[in-house]
């Protein structure tokens, strides 16, 4: 109670966008001691630092509903396609599709933001209701690691 009052007095509110999605993910992130930012009722980011001073940002988004199940997308960006344009060719796109067959718990995708900007991302989908803290941790670590490794291949560390 004291902690709640102190937060109220300070004007702080750990979750300024309460929703079943943000409440659950924030609870898990706190249990994992993760550095989390809540951007809206539908969007959370978690930042990681790796041992080699590289960093990676993971997006956890409530993307909608399928068959009455609330769906999450957990993704981490590698690069804007514009920034790696000279390396985007038939071989690379096919390589990503082949990698998808080898890494079944995440996949490579090209995500379009604001109807314009295309990003290469590592992505994993989860069901909100059945998601436990271990599943969240596993999915986040997997996409973060995969995206960071792909970024380093391009000599980048922007995300």
């Amino acid at each position: 109670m004291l902690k709640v009052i102190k937060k109220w007095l300070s004007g702080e509110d750990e979750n300024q966008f309460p929703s079943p999605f943000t409440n659950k993910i924030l609870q898990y992130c706190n249990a994992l001691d993760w550095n989390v930012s809540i951007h809206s009722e539908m969007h959370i980011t978690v930042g990681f630092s790796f041992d080699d001073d590289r960093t990676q940002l993971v997006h956890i988004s409530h993307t909608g509903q399928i068959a009455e199940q609330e769906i999450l997308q957990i993704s981490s960006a590698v690069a804007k396609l514009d920034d790696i344009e000279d390396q985007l060719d038939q071989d690379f796109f096919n390589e990503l599709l082949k990698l998808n067959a080898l890494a079944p718990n995440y996949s490579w995708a090209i995500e379009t933001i604001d109807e314009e900007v295309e990003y290469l991302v590592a992505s994993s989908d989860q069901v909100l209701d059945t998601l436990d803290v271990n599943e969240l941790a596993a999915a986040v670590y997997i996409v973060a690691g995969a995206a960071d490794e792909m970024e380093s291949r391009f000599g980048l560390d922007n995300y």
Partner: protein
Amino acid sequence: MSKFLDTIVSHANQLEWTLEKLSDARLRLSFNMGEGRSQNVLISHYPNGDEDSSDLVEIASAALKMDGFPDGKLGAEMAKKLLKQNATTAFSSWAIEDTEDGPYLVAMSGWMLDDLDAEEFELAALIVAKAADEMEGTLGIDNF
């Protein structure tokens, strides 16, 4: 029975689905997609080899055998289009799976065995079946 078989059989029974056992590591579902179309979904087990970590389950449905493509590759435009679809289709991603028969374009969904519940299994199987069947439909085929 292995944990893989126990889990998938249990989920299939709950859903009243009929599984065909192809091997200890592979099961098959067949769906009637309507309009005379059918779609097979393969459920494959990939042991982790680490007792502390969950094994992997791949739920996949084939859309196209790629042996007719030069070097077994999709054109750049098509490959990019499929990668873009991967960002907008939950629980199903396009992948090129290399097999003894050559490469196949598949709709695929991957899960940790320990975490795969019946609702997720149902979603994944139906979504990959639909994605693969729709792709076959656009190509005017129904081979899988």
